[in-house]
């Protein structure tokens, strides 16, 4: 389930400098903070689509792949640099989300099983397309920034600091958007009551489209980040999809706040399990905690309302 940030960072992935980890609590805290922020970005898009449109988007991982390869093409193939790649990855994944909604989801909105199947087929199709065009060889996306800083006894890649900072900037921006803008409140309102939203003149079609675009952009951003400290490859969307599902169910389906808290719980659990116990348990422990939480609080930690974002 985990994205193996720790393993990659420790050995220096994708042209990255030396390991960011040495040992001790500071390592756990630093790595937990960074990986969890990325997990939150991955999960928020997934929960937005479920919360607003009631769609279990199994193509969420495919959006991550699309974003990563969009960035790879612009940054590496067209040689336009890492930051241009970042912008391209986000835009391409956002457009992919919009296309998914307009071409398929909107037509099948009232058939959730069919929608789930469609998103699953899309996910497989994207994987096969990338595999056919690019082959199984992983592709490196250049790091957004190079260099390493030593913080509290931990070597910290500047690239990962950027991942953390941008992830949190996006999370906060999204929080402000949904809580303090008319468009954001319309999104929340639609998630609570589609009929109620229609009664006040909110066009749910537009809100749904916006949600798919936002979720696509977030997934694209995550794809670029993953590709920049790991690599981009045809099956890179699978683990984040499972991760999103776990985080969202743990935090409460449809809750942005729940996704952030769920991401941090899962992220720190993975880091602690890897560093303190056994890396082989990295995937198992969060799932056990998820089961325990669901047995005690089946609605997840924060229920399902986006209002609590």
């Amino acid at each position: 389930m985990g994205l193996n940030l720790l393993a990659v960072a420790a050995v220096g992935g994708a042209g990255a400098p030396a390991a960011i980890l040495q040992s001790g609590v500071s390592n756990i805290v630093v790595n937990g903070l960074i990986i969890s922020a990325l997990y939150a970005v991955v999960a928020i898009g997934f929960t937005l689509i479920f919360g607003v449109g009631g769609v279990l988007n199994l193509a969420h991982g495919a959006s991550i792949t699309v974003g990563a390869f969009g960035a790879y093409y612009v940054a590496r193939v067209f040689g336009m640099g890492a930051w241009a790649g970042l912008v391209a990855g986000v835009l391409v994944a956002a457009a992919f989300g919009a296309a998914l909604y307009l071409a398929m989801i909107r037509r099948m909105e009232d058939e959730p099983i069919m929608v789930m199947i469609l998103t699953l087929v899309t996910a497989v199709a994207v994987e096969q397309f990338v595999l056919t065009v690019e082959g199984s060889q992983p592709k490196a996306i250049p790091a957004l920034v190079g260099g390493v800083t030593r913080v509290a006894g931990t070597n910290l890649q500047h690239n990962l600091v950027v991942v953390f900072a941008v992830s949190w900037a996006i999370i906060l921006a999204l929080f402000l958007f949904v809580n303090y803008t008319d468009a954001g409140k319309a999104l929340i309102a639609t998630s609570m009551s589609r009929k109620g939203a229609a009664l006040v003149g909110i066009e749910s079609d537009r809100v749904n489209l916006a949600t798919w675009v936002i979720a696509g952009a977030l997934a694209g951003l995550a794809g670029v980040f993953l590709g920049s400290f790991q690599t981009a490859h045809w099956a890179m969307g699978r683990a984040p999809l499972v991760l999103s599902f776990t985080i969202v169910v743990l935090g409460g389906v449809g809750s942005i706040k729940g996704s952030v808290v769920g991401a941090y719980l899962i992220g720190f659990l993975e880091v602690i399990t890897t560093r303190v116990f056994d890396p082989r348990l990295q995937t198992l422990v969060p799932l056990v905690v998820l089961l325990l939480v669901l047995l005690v609080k089946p609605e997840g930690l924060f229920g399902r309302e986006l209002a609590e974002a």
Partner: protein
Amino acid sequence: MATTDAAAPESAPDVLSTDDLRVTYGKVLALREIDLTVREGEVVSVIGPNGAGKTTLANTVSGFLDYEGSAEYRGREVADRSVSDLVSEGLIHCTEKRDLFGYMTVDDNLRLGAYRHGEDADERLEYVYDLFPALAERTEQNARTMSGGEQQMLAIGRALMGAPDLLVLDEPTLGLAPVILEDISDAIEEINDEGVTVLLFEQNVTFAMNHADRIYLLENGEVVREGSPGELRGDDYIRESYLGG
């Protein structure tokens, strides 16, 4: 409770009119041959027993259901416009289920009511709080934690925030305590006095008669009686079936 028994002038323009309106659910004909007119400034009530088709009719004229025949709001077919366009043009529907945003505060619910009419939102918010002082005391309370009566006030208040030209109220008294009924009754009077045309769907015939200028009785999906409250009070069938003899 105020009593109204004087129809608006017949010369007043039609706000809403239906002609041979029919609605089907699959093969079931839910509404048939509905001819209904609501003139500007009127309170028109559609009464009838549970299952008569009142909510179906309310949803149809508000743009939520497909129909055959004609339903015109301000001279244009309802079906030619989206629900959000109808809301923009002042056709505001307050549903039987209220459809509030349960995890939002009273204030947020009301402000969202002005989603299409944000320009005078503060002024209208003040008006709603004056109309329903109970809401003014609970501005930060989540809608889902309120009593049924308070939720009904909030639903009507949210509808008023949309600057209605025609307010469609579906069963606003359903399940409410008598003391709350009085508040809702006063509010409907005041809303109408402010110039808002009201289409009131009600199972509580006495309540409807006390407010309506004209009444339509709906049974099994068709209009079986229509007239002023005075005329219907004199109708044996209405008296025996709906007014307890």
